[in-house]
Protein backbone atom coordinates (compact mmCIF):
# COMPACT_ATOMS: atom_id res chain seq x y z
CA UNK A 1 0.00 0.00 0.00
CA UNK A 2 2.73 2.42 1.03
CA UNK A 3 6.14 2.09 -0.45
CA UNK A 4 9.31 4.06 0.19
CA UNK A 5 12.27 3.59 -2.10
CA UNK A 6 15.68 4.95 -1.25
CA UNK A 7 14.23 7.96 0.50
CA UNK A 8 16.62 10.64 1.62
CA UNK A 9 15.27 13.47 3.73
CA UNK A 10 16.30 15.88 6.45
CA UNK A 11 16.30 19.43 7.73
CA UNK A 12 18.21 22.10 5.89
CA UNK A 13 21.51 20.69 4.76
CA UNK A 14 21.54 17.78 7.17
CA UNK A 15 20.21 14.49 5.88
CA UNK A 16 18.52 12.49 8.60
CA UNK A 17 17.25 9.66 6.45
CA UNK A 18 19.74 8.11 4.10
CA UNK A 19 18.26 5.90 1.44
CA UNK A 20 15.48 4.31 3.41
CA UNK A 21 13.30 1.74 1.71
CA UNK A 22 10.23 0.48 3.48
CA UNK A 23 6.87 -0.99 2.76
CA UNK A 24 3.61 -0.98 4.67
CA UNK A 25 1.30 -3.64 3.31
CA UNK A 26 -2.41 -3.12 3.11
CA UNK A 27 -4.24 -4.42 6.14
CA UNK A 28 -1.11 -4.96 8.14
CA UNK A 29 0.47 -3.31 11.11
CA UNK A 30 4.02 -2.37 10.35
CA UNK A 31 6.26 -1.40 13.23
CA UNK A 32 9.17 0.97 13.03
CA UNK A 33 11.55 0.91 15.95
CA UNK A 34 14.96 2.28 16.73
CA UNK A 35 16.86 4.39 19.20
CA UNK A 36 16.19 8.05 19.85
CA UNK A 37 17.25 10.26 17.01
CA UNK A 38 17.29 7.44 14.48
CA UNK A 39 14.92 9.34 12.24
CA UNK A 40 11.66 7.54 12.89
CA UNK A 41 9.62 10.69 13.24
CA UNK A 42 11.37 12.19 10.27
CA UNK A 43 10.35 9.20 8.23
CA UNK A 44 6.70 9.62 9.15
CA UNK A 45 6.96 13.31 8.42
CA UNK A 46 8.32 12.72 4.98
CA UNK A 47 5.41 10.42 4.24
CA UNK A 48 2.83 12.92 5.38
CA UNK A 49 4.61 15.72 3.59
CA UNK A 50 5.59 17.89 6.53
CA UNK A 51 9.21 17.18 5.70
CA UNK A 52 10.13 17.31 2.06
CA UNK A 53 12.23 14.40 0.92
CA UNK A 54 15.31 15.20 -1.10
CA UNK A 55 15.57 11.99 -3.09
CA UNK A 56 13.87 8.66 -3.55
CA UNK A 57 10.24 7.90 -4.11
CA UNK A 58 7.26 7.52 -1.83
CA UNK A 59 4.14 5.99 -3.29
CA UNK A 60 0.76 5.35 -1.80
CA UNK A 61 -1.39 2.83 -3.69
CA UNK A 62 0.93 3.43 -6.60
CA UNK A 63 0.50 7.17 -6.60
CA UNK A 64 3.66 9.17 -5.93
CA UNK A 65 3.43 11.40 -2.86
CA UNK A 66 6.62 13.40 -3.23
CA UNK A 67 6.02 17.06 -3.89
CA UNK A 68 2.46 17.00 -2.62
CA UNK A 69 1.57 19.33 0.22
CA UNK A 70 0.44 17.72 3.50
CA UNK A 71 -3.25 18.52 3.06
CA UNK A 72 -3.33 16.75 -0.29
CA UNK A 73 -1.71 13.70 1.22
CA UNK A 74 -4.17 13.78 4.07
CA UNK A 75 -7.05 13.88 1.65
CA UNK A 76 -5.72 10.71 0.02
CA UNK A 77 -6.50 8.88 3.23
CA UNK A 78 -3.33 9.12 5.24
CA UNK A 79 -3.57 10.26 8.84
CA UNK A 80 -0.50 11.19 10.84
CA UNK A 81 -0.57 11.39 14.62
CA UNK A 82 2.47 13.44 15.50
CA UNK A 83 4.54 12.90 18.58
CA UNK A 84 4.00 15.40 21.35
CA UNK A 85 0.20 15.52 21.29
CA UNK A 86 -0.42 18.39 18.97
CA UNK A 87 -4.01 19.11 19.92
CA UNK A 88 -5.63 22.48 19.25
CA UNK A 89 -5.24 23.81 22.76
CA UNK A 90 -7.73 26.65 22.79
CA UNK A 91 -10.45 24.66 21.06
CA UNK A 92 -12.78 22.33 22.87
CA UNK A 93 -12.40 18.58 22.79
CA UNK A 94 -15.43 18.33 20.57
CA UNK A 95 -14.12 20.87 18.12
CA UNK A 96 -10.82 19.03 17.96
CA UNK A 97 -12.64 15.87 17.04
CA UNK A 98 -14.74 17.67 14.46
CA UNK A 99 -11.56 18.97 12.92
CA UNK A 100 -10.67 15.37 12.28
CA UNK A 101 -13.67 15.21 9.99
CA UNK A 102 -12.71 18.35 8.15
CA UNK A 103 -12.32 16.80 4.74
CA UNK A 104 -15.49 17.02 2.72
CA UNK A 105 -16.14 13.35 2.16
CA UNK A 106 -15.66 12.62 5.87
CA UNK A 107 -18.29 15.07 7.00
CA UNK A 108 -21.18 12.77 6.26
CA UNK A 109 -20.16 10.21 8.83
CA UNK A 110 -19.43 12.48 11.74
CA UNK A 111 -21.99 10.89 14.03
CA UNK A 112 -20.71 7.36 13.63
CA UNK A 113 -17.07 8.36 13.88
CA UNK A 114 -17.81 10.37 16.97
CA UNK A 115 -19.60 7.45 18.59
CA UNK A 116 -16.74 5.16 17.75
CA UNK A 117 -14.06 7.45 19.14
CA UNK A 118 -15.92 8.23 22.34
CA UNK A 119 -16.56 4.55 22.76
CA UNK A 120 -12.85 3.98 22.56
CA UNK A 121 -12.02 6.82 24.95
CA UNK A 122 -14.91 7.39 27.37
CA UNK A 123 -12.88 10.11 29.10
CA UNK A 124 -13.20 12.26 26.00
CA UNK A 125 -16.96 12.02 26.10
CA UNK A 126 -16.96 13.34 29.66
CA UNK A 127 -14.80 16.25 28.61
CA UNK A 128 -16.42 17.27 25.33
CA UNK A 129 -16.59 20.96 26.30
CA UNK A 130 -13.24 21.22 28.07
CA UNK A 131 -10.49 23.19 26.37
CA UNK A 132 -8.11 20.68 24.89
CA UNK A 133 -5.11 22.54 26.22
CA UNK A 134 -6.17 21.93 29.79
CA UNK A 135 -6.43 18.18 29.42
CA UNK A 136 -3.85 16.03 31.14
CA UNK A 137 -1.00 14.68 29.07
CA UNK A 138 -2.58 11.31 28.55
CA UNK A 139 -5.98 12.77 27.79
CA UNK A 140 -4.41 14.84 25.07
CA UNK A 141 -2.84 11.76 23.63
CA UNK A 142 -6.26 10.13 23.47
CA UNK A 143 -7.63 13.19 21.77
CA UNK A 144 -4.87 13.26 19.18
CA UNK A 145 -5.52 9.65 18.36
CA UNK A 146 -9.27 10.09 18.34
CA UNK A 147 -9.00 13.07 16.06
CA UNK A 148 -6.97 11.11 13.56
CA UNK A 149 -9.50 8.27 13.67
CA UNK A 150 -12.22 10.79 12.86
CA UNK A 151 -10.50 11.10 9.49
CA UNK A 152 -11.41 7.50 8.74
CA UNK A 153 -8.04 7.00 7.10
CA UNK A 154 -6.88 4.06 5.07
CA UNK A 155 -3.39 4.39 6.43
CA UNK A 156 -2.52 5.82 9.81
CA UNK A 157 0.96 6.86 10.84
CA UNK A 158 1.30 6.66 14.60
CA UNK A 159 4.23 8.32 16.30
CA UNK A 160 4.58 6.82 19.77
CA UNK A 161 0.88 6.47 20.53
CA UNK A 162 1.50 5.00 23.96
CA UNK A 163 3.69 7.86 25.12
CA UNK A 164 2.40 9.12 28.43
CA UNK A 165 -0.51 6.73 28.61
CA UNK A 166 -1.31 4.62 31.62
CA UNK A 167 -0.58 0.92 31.07
CA UNK A 168 -4.22 -0.04 31.26
CA UNK A 169 -5.06 2.46 28.58
CA UNK A 170 -2.19 1.31 26.41
CA UNK A 171 -3.77 -2.12 26.47
CA UNK A 172 -7.09 -0.68 25.45
CA UNK A 173 -5.61 1.32 22.65
CA UNK A 174 -3.62 -1.53 21.26
CA UNK A 175 -6.54 -3.87 21.25
CA UNK A 176 -8.62 -1.22 19.49
CA UNK A 177 -5.86 -0.73 16.96
CA UNK A 178 -5.90 -4.42 16.40
CA UNK A 179 -9.63 -4.37 15.82
CA UNK A 180 -9.35 -1.45 13.43
CA UNK A 181 -6.58 -3.21 11.66
CA UNK A 182 -8.72 -6.27 11.22
CA UNK A 183 -11.42 -4.06 9.76
CA UNK A 184 -8.95 -2.96 7.11
CA UNK A 185 -6.94 -0.06 8.52
CA UNK A 186 -3.30 -0.12 7.58
CA UNK A 187 -1.02 1.07 10.35
CA UNK A 188 2.56 2.27 10.39
CA UNK A 189 3.59 2.38 13.99
CA UNK A 190 6.55 4.06 15.65
CA UNK A 191 6.95 2.87 19.20
CA UNK A 192 9.57 2.92 21.93
CA UNK A 193 7.84 0.10 23.72
CA UNK A 194 9.54 -2.31 21.36
CA UNK A 195 8.21 -5.48 22.85
CA UNK A 196 4.68 -4.32 22.49
CA UNK A 197 5.24 -3.00 18.99
CA UNK A 198 6.69 -6.27 17.85
CA UNK A 199 3.93 -8.24 19.52
CA UNK A 200 1.15 -6.41 17.79
CA UNK A 201 2.70 -5.91 14.35
CA UNK A 202 3.11 -8.28 11.48
CA UNK A 203 6.24 -6.77 10.05
CA UNK A 204 8.90 -4.55 11.52
CA UNK A 205 11.79 -2.34 10.52
CA UNK A 206 14.64 -1.31 12.73
CA UNK A 207 16.02 2.09 11.96
CA UNK A 208 19.35 3.33 13.16
CA UNK A 209 21.16 6.46 12.13
CA UNK A 210 18.76 7.04 9.31
CA UNK A 211 19.21 3.63 7.76
CA UNK A 212 17.20 0.45 7.93
CA UNK A 213 19.48 -2.07 9.60
CA UNK A 214 17.00 -4.85 10.03
CA UNK A 215 13.64 -5.81 8.63
CA UNK A 216 11.41 -8.77 8.65
CA UNK A 217 8.50 -10.46 10.33
CA UNK A 218 7.97 -9.11 13.78
CA UNK A 219 7.75 -12.50 15.36
CA UNK A 220 11.17 -13.38 13.98
CA UNK A 221 12.74 -10.21 15.23
CA UNK A 222 11.19 -10.66 18.65
CA UNK A 223 13.04 -13.87 19.19
CA UNK A 224 16.32 -12.66 17.74
CA UNK A 225 18.46 -12.43 20.83
CA UNK A 226 20.77 -9.76 19.42
CA UNK A 227 17.83 -7.47 18.83
CA UNK A 228 16.31 -8.32 22.13
CA UNK A 229 19.29 -7.12 24.06
CA UNK A 230 19.84 -4.01 21.99
CA UNK A 231 16.27 -2.82 21.67
CA UNK A 232 14.29 -4.46 24.37
CA UNK A 233 16.98 -4.05 26.94
CA UNK A 234 18.33 -6.59 29.36
CA UNK A 235 16.18 -6.82 32.45
CA UNK A 236 17.54 -4.69 35.23
CA UNK A 237 18.65 -6.32 38.41
CA UNK A 238 15.68 -7.32 40.45
CA UNK A 239 13.24 -6.12 37.86
CA UNK A 240 12.11 -9.50 36.70
CA UNK A 241 11.54 -10.70 40.17
CA UNK A 242 9.60 -7.62 41.14
CA UNK A 243 7.37 -7.77 38.16
CA UNK A 244 6.73 -11.44 38.61
CA UNK A 245 5.92 -10.86 42.25
CA UNK A 246 3.53 -8.10 41.52
CA UNK A 247 1.51 -10.08 39.05
Amino acid at each position, binding site marked *: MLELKQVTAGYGKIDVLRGVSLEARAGEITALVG*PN*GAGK*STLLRSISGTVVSAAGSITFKGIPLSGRPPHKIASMGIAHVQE*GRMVFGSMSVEENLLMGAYLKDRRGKIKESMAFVTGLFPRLRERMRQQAGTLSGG*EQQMLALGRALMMRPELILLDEPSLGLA*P*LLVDTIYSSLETLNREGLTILLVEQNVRRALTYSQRAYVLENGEVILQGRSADILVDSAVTSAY*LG*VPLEGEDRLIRQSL
Partner: protein
Amino acid sequence: MNLMIIENVSKKFGGIAALKNLDLAVEKGRILGVIGPNGAGKTTLINVITGYEKVDAGKINYDGKDISKLPPHVRARHGIVRTFQIPRCFAGLTVLENIMIPVLLRHSRGEAERRARSIAERMLLGDDLHKQAETLPVGGLKLLELARAYAASPRILLLDEPMGGLSQDRMEPIIRLIREMREDGLTIILVEHVMKAVVALADILAVLNFGERLAHGRPCDVMKLKAVRDAYLGEGHA
Protein backbone atom coordinates in the same frame (compact mmCIF):
# COMPACT_ATOMS: atom_id res chain seq x y z
CA MET B 1 13.12 12.39 58.12
CA ASN B 2 10.57 13.76 55.72
CA LEU B 3 11.81 16.47 53.40
CA MET B 4 8.47 17.27 51.84
CA ILE B 5 5.09 16.80 53.44
CA ILE B 6 1.90 17.41 51.53
CA GLU B 7 -0.98 17.82 53.90
CA ASN B 8 -4.60 17.66 52.92
CA VAL B 9 -4.05 19.44 49.61
CA SER B 10 -7.00 20.09 47.30
CA LYS B 11 -7.12 21.68 43.89
CA LYS B 12 -10.16 22.15 41.70
CA PHE B 13 -10.48 23.27 38.11
CA GLY B 14 -14.03 24.36 37.59
CA GLY B 15 -15.98 21.24 38.40
CA ILE B 16 -13.03 18.88 38.14
CA ALA B 17 -11.27 18.02 41.36
CA ALA B 18 -7.72 17.38 40.27
CA LEU B 19 -6.49 16.82 43.84
CA LYS B 20 -8.68 15.86 46.77
CA ASN B 21 -7.43 16.08 50.36
CA LEU B 22 -4.17 14.55 49.38
CA ASP B 23 -1.57 13.55 51.96
CA LEU B 24 1.89 12.52 50.87
CA ALA B 25 5.36 12.62 52.30
CA VAL B 26 8.82 12.00 50.91
CA GLU B 27 11.77 11.03 52.98
CA LYS B 28 15.10 12.66 52.38
CA GLY B 29 17.23 10.70 49.95
CA ARG B 30 14.37 8.51 48.80
CA ILE B 31 12.51 8.20 45.55
CA LEU B 32 8.75 8.50 45.74
CA GLY B 33 7.14 7.03 42.67
CA VAL B 34 3.75 8.46 41.72
CA ILE B 35 1.58 6.58 39.32
CA GLY B 36 -2.04 6.72 38.39
CA PRO B 37 -4.37 6.80 35.42
CA ASN B 38 -4.32 9.67 32.99
CA GLY B 39 -5.87 12.73 34.49
CA ALA B 40 -5.40 11.44 38.03
CA GLY B 41 -3.72 14.65 39.13
CA LYS B 42 -0.03 13.75 39.02
CA THR B 43 1.07 16.76 37.05
CA THR B 44 -1.20 18.93 39.10
CA LEU B 45 0.59 17.64 42.17
CA ILE B 46 3.90 18.73 40.73
CA ASN B 47 2.39 22.06 39.76
CA VAL B 48 1.24 22.82 43.27
CA ILE B 49 4.49 21.72 44.83
CA THR B 50 6.53 23.92 42.53
CA GLY B 51 4.15 26.86 42.70
CA TYR B 52 2.72 26.84 39.20
CA GLU B 53 -0.73 26.38 40.59
CA LYS B 54 -2.02 27.70 43.90
CA VAL B 55 -3.60 25.17 46.22
CA ASP B 56 -7.26 25.62 47.12
CA ALA B 57 -6.67 24.15 50.53
CA GLY B 58 -3.97 22.35 52.46
CA LYS B 59 -0.32 22.84 53.25
CA ILE B 60 2.91 22.05 51.53
CA ASN B 61 5.73 21.63 53.98
CA TYR B 62 9.29 21.62 52.80
CA ASP B 63 12.15 21.17 55.16
CA GLY B 64 9.95 22.23 58.05
CA LYS B 65 8.55 25.36 56.42
CA ASP B 66 5.27 26.02 54.65
CA ILE B 67 6.17 27.06 51.15
CA SER B 68 2.78 27.34 49.57
CA LYS B 69 3.01 31.12 49.25
CA LEU B 70 6.37 31.30 47.47
CA PRO B 71 6.64 31.98 43.74
CA PRO B 72 8.10 29.21 41.54
CA HIS B 73 11.56 30.65 41.08
CA VAL B 74 12.06 31.07 44.82
CA ARG B 75 11.03 27.48 45.40
CA ALA B 76 13.48 26.48 42.70
CA ARG B 77 16.21 28.38 44.49
CA HIS B 78 15.35 26.52 47.64
CA GLY B 79 16.09 23.37 45.74
CA ILE B 80 12.66 22.32 44.54
CA VAL B 81 13.23 21.72 40.85
CA ARG B 82 10.93 20.12 38.33
CA THR B 83 10.84 18.90 34.77
CA PHE B 84 7.89 19.39 32.46
CA GLN B 85 5.91 16.53 31.03
CA ILE B 86 5.90 18.21 27.66
CA PRO B 87 9.49 19.39 27.35
CA ARG B 88 9.97 23.13 27.47
CA CYS B 89 13.41 23.78 26.21
CA PHE B 90 14.72 27.22 25.33
CA ALA B 91 14.29 26.60 21.65
CA GLY B 92 16.71 29.18 20.34
CA LEU B 93 19.59 28.24 22.63
CA THR B 94 21.94 25.33 22.13
CA VAL B 95 21.83 22.26 24.31
CA LEU B 96 24.90 23.45 26.20
CA GLU B 97 23.44 26.90 26.76
CA ASN B 98 20.19 25.38 27.94
CA ILE B 99 22.01 23.47 30.62
CA MET B 100 24.17 26.44 31.51
CA ILE B 101 21.21 28.65 32.43
CA PRO B 102 20.64 27.34 35.96
CA VAL B 103 24.36 26.95 36.61
CA LEU B 104 25.00 30.56 35.68
CA LEU B 105 22.88 31.62 38.62
CA ARG B 106 25.64 30.47 40.91
CA HIS B 107 28.82 30.37 38.90
CA SER B 108 30.91 32.33 36.45
CA ARG B 109 30.50 31.65 32.81
CA GLY B 110 33.62 29.55 32.43
CA GLU B 111 32.73 27.42 35.39
CA ALA B 112 29.14 27.12 34.25
CA GLU B 113 30.20 25.92 30.86
CA ARG B 114 32.51 23.33 32.41
CA ARG B 115 29.83 22.01 34.68
CA ALA B 116 27.19 22.04 31.97
CA ARG B 117 29.45 20.04 29.72
CA SER B 118 30.02 17.39 32.30
CA ILE B 119 26.32 17.13 33.07
CA ALA B 120 25.56 16.86 29.37
CA GLU B 121 28.07 14.04 29.03
CA ARG B 122 26.50 12.15 31.88
CA MET B 123 23.05 12.64 30.43
CA LEU B 124 24.07 11.20 27.06
CA LEU B 125 23.87 14.59 25.38
CA GLY B 126 27.58 14.87 24.69
CA ASP B 127 27.18 14.65 20.94
CA ASP B 128 24.46 17.27 20.76
CA LEU B 129 26.10 20.06 22.76
CA HIS B 130 25.97 22.63 20.03
CA LYS B 131 22.71 21.64 18.45
CA GLN B 132 19.90 24.11 18.66
CA ALA B 133 17.54 22.69 21.26
CA GLU B 134 14.50 22.87 19.01
CA THR B 135 16.05 20.42 16.58
CA LEU B 136 16.32 17.64 19.14
CA PRO B 137 14.05 14.62 18.73
CA VAL B 138 11.64 13.76 21.51
CA GLY B 139 14.11 11.54 23.28
CA GLY B 140 16.74 14.26 23.26
CA LEU B 141 14.32 16.79 24.66
CA LYS B 142 13.47 14.51 27.55
CA LEU B 143 17.13 14.14 28.38
CA LEU B 144 17.68 17.86 28.10
CA GLU B 145 14.76 18.51 30.42
CA LEU B 146 16.35 16.20 32.98
CA ALA B 147 19.85 17.54 32.53
CA ARG B 148 18.72 21.11 32.95
CA ALA B 149 16.80 20.32 36.10
CA TYR B 150 19.76 18.46 37.52
CA ALA B 151 22.00 21.39 36.70
CA ALA B 152 19.85 23.61 38.92
CA SER B 153 21.36 21.93 42.01
CA PRO B 154 18.11 20.51 43.35
CA ARG B 155 17.56 19.08 46.77
CA ILE B 156 14.34 17.57 45.66
CA LEU B 157 13.72 16.77 42.04
CA LEU B 158 10.24 16.40 40.63
CA LEU B 159 10.32 14.42 37.44
CA ASP B 160 7.22 14.38 35.26
CA GLU B 161 7.46 11.32 33.03
CA PRO B 162 11.18 11.54 32.29
CA MET B 163 11.29 8.14 30.58
CA GLY B 164 8.39 8.46 28.19
CA GLY B 165 9.78 8.36 24.68
CA LEU B 166 13.27 7.25 25.66
CA SER B 167 14.61 4.29 23.77
CA GLN B 168 15.99 1.29 25.61
CA ASP B 169 19.61 2.17 25.05
CA ARG B 170 19.04 5.44 26.81
CA MET B 171 16.55 4.45 29.43
CA GLU B 172 18.87 2.08 31.20
CA PRO B 173 21.76 4.47 31.69
CA ILE B 174 19.32 7.16 32.79
CA ILE B 175 17.79 4.85 35.36
CA ARG B 176 21.26 4.15 36.64
CA LEU B 177 21.97 7.83 36.73
CA ILE B 178 18.88 8.59 38.76
CA ARG B 179 19.91 5.93 41.21
CA GLU B 180 23.28 7.58 41.54
CA MET B 181 21.60 10.87 42.22
CA ARG B 182 19.65 9.34 45.01
CA GLU B 183 22.77 7.83 46.42
CA ASP B 184 24.24 11.34 46.45
CA GLY B 185 21.41 12.31 48.78
CA LEU B 186 18.95 13.77 46.30
CA THR B 187 15.25 13.33 47.02
CA ILE B 188 13.10 12.55 44.03
CA ILE B 189 9.42 12.47 43.19
CA LEU B 190 9.02 10.42 40.05
CA VAL B 191 5.82 10.56 38.05
CA GLU B 192 5.99 7.90 35.42
CA HIS B 193 3.97 5.55 33.26
CA VAL B 194 6.87 3.40 32.17
CA MET B 195 6.46 0.72 34.82
CA LYS B 196 9.83 -0.74 34.23
CA ALA B 197 11.45 2.46 35.39
CA VAL B 198 9.09 2.93 38.30
CA VAL B 199 9.75 -0.54 39.51
CA ALA B 200 13.45 -0.11 39.13
CA LEU B 201 13.61 3.20 40.93
CA ALA B 202 10.84 3.84 43.42
CA ASP B 203 11.44 3.25 47.10
CA ILE B 204 7.88 4.10 47.92
CA LEU B 205 5.01 4.13 45.50
CA ALA B 206 1.90 6.28 45.64
CA VAL B 207 -1.03 5.65 43.39
CA LEU B 208 -3.37 8.51 42.58
CA ASN B 209 -6.84 8.13 41.20
CA PHE B 210 -9.27 10.99 40.64
CA GLY B 211 -7.05 13.21 42.73
CA GLU B 212 -7.11 10.89 45.70
CA ARG B 213 -4.56 8.54 47.12
CA LEU B 214 -5.57 5.07 46.12
CA ALA B 215 -2.61 3.25 47.59
CA HIS B 216 0.73 3.94 49.16
CA GLY B 217 3.58 1.70 50.19
CA ARG B 218 6.38 -0.50 48.96
CA PRO B 219 6.15 -0.94 45.19
CA CYS B 220 5.80 -4.72 45.28
CA ASP B 221 2.97 -4.48 47.80
CA VAL B 222 1.20 -1.72 46.03
CA MET B 223 1.36 -3.32 42.64
CA LYS B 224 -0.24 -6.44 43.93
CA LEU B 225 -3.38 -4.63 45.00
CA LYS B 226 -6.41 -5.39 42.95
CA ALA B 227 -7.64 -1.80 43.06
CA VAL B 228 -4.40 -0.63 41.52
CA ARG B 229 -4.50 -3.27 38.85
CA ASP B 230 -8.07 -2.44 37.96
CA ALA B 231 -7.55 1.28 37.87
CA TYR B 232 -4.15 1.48 36.40
CA LEU B 233 -2.00 -1.47 35.52
CA GLY B 234 -4.31 -3.76 33.67
CA GLU B 235 -3.15 -7.28 33.24
CA GLY B 236 -0.30 -7.60 30.82
CA HIS B 237 1.45 -4.36 31.66
CA ALA B 238 5.04 -5.52 31.59
